[in-house]
């Protein structure tokens, strides 16, 4: 998911340092918390996708911030079942009235289900981006990738750096 690409490019150089700092902070917190993805916590990418892991299965969607930035979604193109994805692969697209945005897979794995409801009713992405508006599910092939993603708290901070 690329939100306002040109703004992001400009912001990237500024935000990187901050994200690193946040990661360091998070590391200290982790000593107190137990493994963070045991509780099916949503993890985020800097391209505004989220993934929620349950056992071997990851459910993928786009964030509230992305949904708002896109505006009314009118068409969702999702990866077909059995597609093998690598992390960061472009695997679909969401079309809003204003523009088309690519969807990138936050993690590697094989697609086991796509949300047929949003192919039918793309506006579910706007009305329920974390629940009914999920995009597709994958069987994870590399769980280690999860540690490179942002927690909700980190992501919320990251989003603040995207707003001008």
């Amino acid at each position: 998911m690329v939100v306002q690409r040109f703004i992001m490019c400009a912001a990237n150089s500024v935000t990187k340092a901050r994200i690193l700092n946040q990661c360091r902070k998070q590391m200290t917190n982790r000593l107190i918390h137990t493994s963070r993805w045991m509780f099916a916590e949503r993890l985020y990418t800097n391209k505004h996708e989220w993934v929620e892991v349950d056992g071997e299965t990851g459910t993928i969607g786009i964030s509230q911030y992305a949904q708002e930035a896109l505006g009314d979604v009118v068409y969702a193109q999702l990866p077909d079942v059995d597609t093998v994805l690598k992390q960061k692969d472009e695997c679909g697209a969401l079309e809003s009235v204003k523009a088309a945005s690519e969807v990138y897979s936050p993690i590697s794995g094989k697609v086991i289900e796509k949300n047929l409801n949003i192919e039918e009713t793309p506006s579910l992405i706007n009305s329920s981006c974390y629940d009914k508006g999920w995009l597709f599910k994958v069987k994870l092939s590399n769980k280690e990738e999860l540690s490179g993603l942002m927690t909700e708290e980190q992501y919320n901070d990251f989003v603040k750096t995207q707003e001008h």
Partner: protein
Amino acid sequence: MESICTADLQNFPNNSSVLTVFTNDQGGVLDDLIITKISQDHLYVVSNAAMKKQDQAHLLKALENHKKNSPSSNIKVKFFEPQERGLVALQGPKAAEVLQKLTDVDLTKLYFMTSAEATVCGAGACRITRCGYTGEDGFEISMPAIKAVDISRELIRNGDVKLAGLGARDSLRLEAGMCLYGSDLTAETTPVEAALTWLIAKRRREARDFPGAEVILKQIKEGPQKKRVGLVADSGPPARHGSAVVDDNGNVIGSVTSGCPSPSLNKNIAMAYVPSAYSKNGSKLSLKIREKLYSAVVTKMPFVPSNYYTKPK
């Protein structure tokens, strides 16, 4: 002005506005713009903001040429900066009702593509032109910049008035089949190819005295090689600028210049340039979007019927 555009300004009534194009020697479009003839010796021009620099240079060059040929000419060009004049568009079926409460001009007598000097919200030195970029009834109000915020605030105090972003305006102008300069019109396209032959005034065709006249008149006579058409697709993702147009045999024959979902039609609409042989309404073509083909039909524009306040005939 006529030396650089295709309109018949000489025979044009005062306080009337016309859409026209600046053309180059190859017949390509350098910009599209609205010219209002305020009086025999006063034209008011609204061109594209994105083309400000090019248009200014183009006008100054035309003036220089004119003065070379007629040294006694006292024609002047004045460019208004945003700090001097503001332009606010009020568009939609209720626009007249809203604006009438705030101006001294009788809007029932101000028809589509006519213009009047006005007082708006108590501010003098405004000019209301009944035109717009939405396909709907509406007005463009030119005003002293210092009054622009006050007038805009006053307009949106009416509950029927909402601010609209560029995205909304783009959907409307596409539904209305209007060109966006830089996408649907460029220096590489002629008015004939762009299905804007009606912009070449009759007198000007006879006089053959506008830049690119030779190319353009030949195309009018013989028909252009390619043409701007409207496309409607019932399903699939909306085509965007750059999407390929494909024929039955899978050959790429053209390219989409604008496209979006039409909120009024609940279908996807687009404009594209295709070879004239494919430009007939009802022709079935395909659009290639992210390597997949989706069928589309060549459709007459405007996609959504226009709603203008035209003078009764």
